[in-house]
């Protein structure tokens, strides 16, 4: 056996176990993450001072990407970490939205408290649906979660005490008498939860139960021998994923101002799945990238189709059609060219930047 020390990539100077376990394996990666977070925190300030640079529409888009990213992150714990599947994520997202509105409207719970509380309530519902699901695998599990989707949708339509049968209003938060109704203030509420969620799940991934999730996915027979209770971890994974779905749904409700019983269909569940597949299964950062991609794709393709129509006036009739085709095509092309997701693309780009211009 050769004992040549494994050559690390250039620029990798870890020397202690603690560094080894740190969230960012290299200094530049850590600095990049901090820089991006700071930039994100500056957006509303730029929007206030220079609205021409950062429009309110952009702020609204960023809010929605952030919210979708939290939900996608939750789904990634279930699908990417634990290797299960859920076609019902949107229903849990919706449950969070209604729970938060319910707590605020009926018990005068402050919105800022109702949002995480909705996450906890949704996690409990997730455990409930996860209990039977934990015994199923593959297609059977997919069908069971599909049932959860329809059961909850039906519940939204029928439980008038909870949803009025069509929908309920959801106020924007107030902090110390100060209204956070302006999108630019609400942006900070979302940013706060995005940061908390992403750091939380990154930490999970490098601690006991996060590893247990991945072990269950990779080889459940040997996971069991290592002392991991399969049922417990499969149910737990549903709970964690539902928590983030509920948290994100609550944010979404208060963002829209009105929670409609029709907003949380299977289509949205599939979009959440698309986000994590395109972003990168099991990747924390990928959840954010995938959410941004899926959210931005339709408007991007809309303007693409419109500008095409300007060049070729004959296309005028078919703009909507071209847009839908372009979305489908973009996703398919993406999956062919970068099957491991946006995160993989991002890592490659970063690798070529690292130590520029001296990298090898």
């Amino acid at each position, binding site marked *: *056996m050769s*004992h*040549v*020390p*494994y050559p690390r990539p250039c620029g990798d100077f870890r020397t202690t*176990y*603690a560094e*080894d*376990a740190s969230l960012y394996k290299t200094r530049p990666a850590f600095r990049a993450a901090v820089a991006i977070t700071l930039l994100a925190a500056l957006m509303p300030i730029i929007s206030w001072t220079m609205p021409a640079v950062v429009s309110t529409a952009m702020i609204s888009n960023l809010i929605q990407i952030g919210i979708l990213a939290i939900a996608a992150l939750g789904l990634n714990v279930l699908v990417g970490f634990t290797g299960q599947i859920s076609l019902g994520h949107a229903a849990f997202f919706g449950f969070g939205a209604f729970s938060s509105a319910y707590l605020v409207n009926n018990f005068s719970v402050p919105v800022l408290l109702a949002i995480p509380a909705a996450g906890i309530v949704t996690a409990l519902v997730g455990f409930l649906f996860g209990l039977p699901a934990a015994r199923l695998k593959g297609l059977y599990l997919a069908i069971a979660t599909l049932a959860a989707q329809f059961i909850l949708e039906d519940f939204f339509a029928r439980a008038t005490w909870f949803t009025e049968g069509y929908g309920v209003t959801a106020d924007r938060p107030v902090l110390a008498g100060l209204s956070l109704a302006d999108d630019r203030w609400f942006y900070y509420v979302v940013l706060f939860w995005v940061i908390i969620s992403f750091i*939380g*799940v990154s*930490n*999970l991934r*490098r*601690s*006991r*139960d*996060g*590893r*247990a999730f*991945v*072990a269950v*996915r*990779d*080889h459940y*027979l*040997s*996971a*069991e*021998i*290592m*002392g*991991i*209770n*399969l049922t417990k971890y499969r149910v*737990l994974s549903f709970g*964690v994923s539902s928590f983030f779905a509920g948290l994100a749904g609550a944010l979404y409700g208060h963002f829209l101002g009105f929670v409609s019983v029709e907003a949380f269909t299977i289509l949205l569940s599939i979009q959440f799945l698309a986000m994590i597949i395109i972003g990168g299964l*099991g990747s924390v950062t990928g959840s954010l990238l995938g959410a941004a991609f899926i959210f931005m794709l339709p408007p991007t393709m809309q303007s693409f189709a419109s500008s095409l129509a300007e060049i070729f006036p004959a296309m005028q009739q078919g703009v909507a059609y071209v847009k839908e085709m372009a979305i489908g095509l973009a996703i398919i092309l993406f999956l062919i060219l970068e099957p491991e997701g946006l995160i993989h693309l991002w890592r490659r780009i970063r690798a070529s930047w690292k130590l520029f211009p001296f990298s090898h």
Partner: protein
Amino acid sequence: MTQPERMLEVEGVSLRFGGVRALNNVSFHVERGELFSIIGPNGAGKTSLLNCISGRYRPNEGSIRFRGEQLLGRSINDRARLGIGRTFQNLALFGHMSVLDNILVGRHHLLKNNVITGMLYWASGARREELAHRKRVEEIIDFLEIQHVRNEPAGTLSYGLRKRVELARAVAIEPELILLDEPMAGMNLEEKEDMARYIVDLGQEFNMTIVMIEHDMGVVVDLSDRVIVLDFGKLIAGGTPEEVMADEHVKRAYLGEEDELLHDEEAEAMPSKQPEGVGA
């Protein structure tokens, strides 16, 4: 630690798969600190026996005691906490996890942090706990000489290295009893010598009791304190390696002495070294 009780007592264990009698009234015991080998031709029921001990299979009859305590009826995920670790005949690593993470999974039952404290990491003390255990894991990594691949995804390693990582993962459980299913199958001579050294050290430095299935007779004779021989699910001989090698039944059934051949099946039952058969 109480010394007197036996590490493992297997009594009258029978296991059937439909018409196949994988194990037929097998009884033996393993003393604390022993290096105990199970040999026998392909399909003799060796892996099935290990699976009964580790809980994968439930015997139709018999009892299996570990340190005096009945194992049958206890769940598989209890084994690690009780002090039993194992490796698999067909590799069973967590392919997408790094070598380090694979071995850390072995610490699962020793770690206390959970989903919530894990997410809080710095604030909950999970970090301190993780790093403390990582220190022990690094010792195991050094012992098995896999430092150079510690951050590689386990699924990308060579066969011999994967076998070693699997051993490291089982050692990380800190078991009192470790079950090894053909730890040297498919290895070249040099890798086998390394592996033999690790196994001896498991007993001498880590104070583990070892139950090992192995086809390589040289290794079995050199390393084992005691050996049992299975053939068609039956225990046909047991004792020191020398006693077993001299046993007439073993010669006939296992080594297949040509002039004494009674059945063609016995010729086919010659030991082969490729890892095959129904894995765990």
